[in-house]
């Protein structure tokens, strides 16, 4: 029974996105001055970019919550915020890459080249590089608590730095990119039917992002829990392999870190890595 209730929003999202696809091809008219059917990419490309943007903001918020959020007195920072931030960046990178690729395909049709360093292309690539660096940072810290703390600080720095890409880059180079949905004059100049489909698609993609984010966060939580249990000997080593394949990474340092006055061992709820004990 509970499962049916839980899947109702999912079914609604599925129907909604199906309706958006139909609407994009059958209900919305073609935009003027676009080659062939290429303007229909608007209904997917723009919401993907929007979902990526939402994801990076979400990751920043969870990182700030991890660093500065309220916690019970004397207890540690809450690892679930860290997992949520990481999941948001992973899903955001997925949407960002999709937006870049769909944009490049459209650019090939309209401008004759997949890539021409248009300001929008430049800004999104810079954002992707920034959050790719975030994942690289996570991979190079072994202690779980330290990894979460440093990564959260870097993601919070991203909240400060990435807006500059969006202010600075478009001013420096000339853009061929179609005007934003709400243009510089503050008006929406778009066919009402196209606007309806675009807004519906934007809402659908935002919901899709939050659903994927929830799934990824839960997978990370479960994988970490499995790793913990495997390290305690509850499962055979295979379960630990599966868990680390799903993205859980326990602390590889079983001893307290000498540079950490409070002792990293105490700060880390996850048990020592199965890489050393079970493999």
């Amino acid at each position, binding site marked *: 029974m509970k499962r049916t209730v839980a899947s109702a929003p999912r079914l609604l999202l599925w129907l909604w996105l199906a309706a958006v696809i139909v609407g994009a091809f059958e209900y919305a008219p073609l935009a003027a001055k676009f080659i062939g059917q290429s303007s229909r990419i608007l209904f997917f490309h723009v919401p993907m970019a929007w979902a990526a943007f939402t994801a990076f903001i979400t990751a920043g918020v969870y990182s700030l919550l991890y660093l500065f959020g309220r916690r019970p007195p004397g207890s540690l920072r809450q690892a679930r915020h860290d997992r949520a931030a990481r999941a948001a960046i992973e899903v955001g990178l997925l949407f960002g890459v999709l937006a870049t690729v769909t944009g490049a395909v459209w650019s090939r049709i309209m401008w004759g080249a997949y890539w021409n360093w248009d300001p929008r292309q430049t800004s999104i690539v810079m954002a992707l590089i920034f959050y790719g660096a975030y994942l*690289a940072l996570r991979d190079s810290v072994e202690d779980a608590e330290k990894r979460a*703390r440093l990564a959260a600080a870097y993601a919070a*720095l991203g909240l400060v730095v990435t807006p500059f890409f969006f202010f600075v880059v478009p001013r420096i180079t000339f853009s061929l990119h179609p005007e934003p949905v709400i243009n510089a004059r503050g008006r929406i100049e778009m066919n009402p039917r196209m606007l309806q489909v675009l807004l519906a698609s934007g809402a659908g993609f935002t919901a899709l992002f939050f659903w994927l984010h929830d799934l990824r966060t839960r997978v990370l939580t479960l994988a970490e829990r499995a790793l913990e249990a495997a390290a305690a000997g509850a499962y055979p080593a295979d379960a630990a392999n599966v868990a680390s394949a799903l993205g859980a990474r326990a602390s590889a340092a079983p001893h307290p870190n000498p540079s950490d006055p409070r002792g990293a061992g105490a700060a880390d709820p996850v048990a020592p890595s199965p890489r050393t004990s079970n493999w």
Partner: protein
Amino acid sequence: MSRPASTWVREAAAVFAKEWRSELRTRYALNTLALFAINTLVVVSASLGPLGAAPGKGSEALPVLLWLILLFAAAAGLPRSFVHEEETQTATALRLAATPSALFCGKLAYALTLLAALEALVAPLFLAVMNLDVARPGLLVATLAAGGFGLAAGSTLVAAIIAQARGKGTLFAVLSFPVLLPLLLLAVELTRGAFAGAPPGVALVQLLLYDGAVTTAGLMLFPVVWNP
């Protein structure tokens, strides 16, 4: 945090003095930065050849090279101030001795003076070797000052992050370049304007905003990066 302001200033000044004292003992960063910058300058100038001498011809691309030299020289020398603390295990003593924000400001002031020295060495050499005329010297100095400040602030925070991770050298480049990219774009635009005689416009304001934003973020984030 509730300590009086004079203690805070004294702590920051002590960190600054300690950085320079240990730097002058080994002269590691000074030598690395200066030699790295001069090497790159020689490579750039030799491979450009006579193009550097043609007035007007190279002034579009040359500001990019100037800032790339500064960026890579900074990446070679600046992370050491934190990496060294972790490697020699002096970080714990420093954690006990200084307030994080005072420590950050002391390290920032050290990076700032180091970069200012580097710019004072590299920029005139670059102009001389490339045979460039500067239409607006004041704007060039302002750009070097504001750009150097942002470079120091961004690098100091990222250096504090990577000092606690593995693969420090490459990781510093990976993490700091996306952070410093807006600064680089703005500084290149302004330097180009200074060579050509164009007014600074909104770019200088944006560069100063970037400096302010990164410094504020550094002051807020450094305590959590530094202390477990």
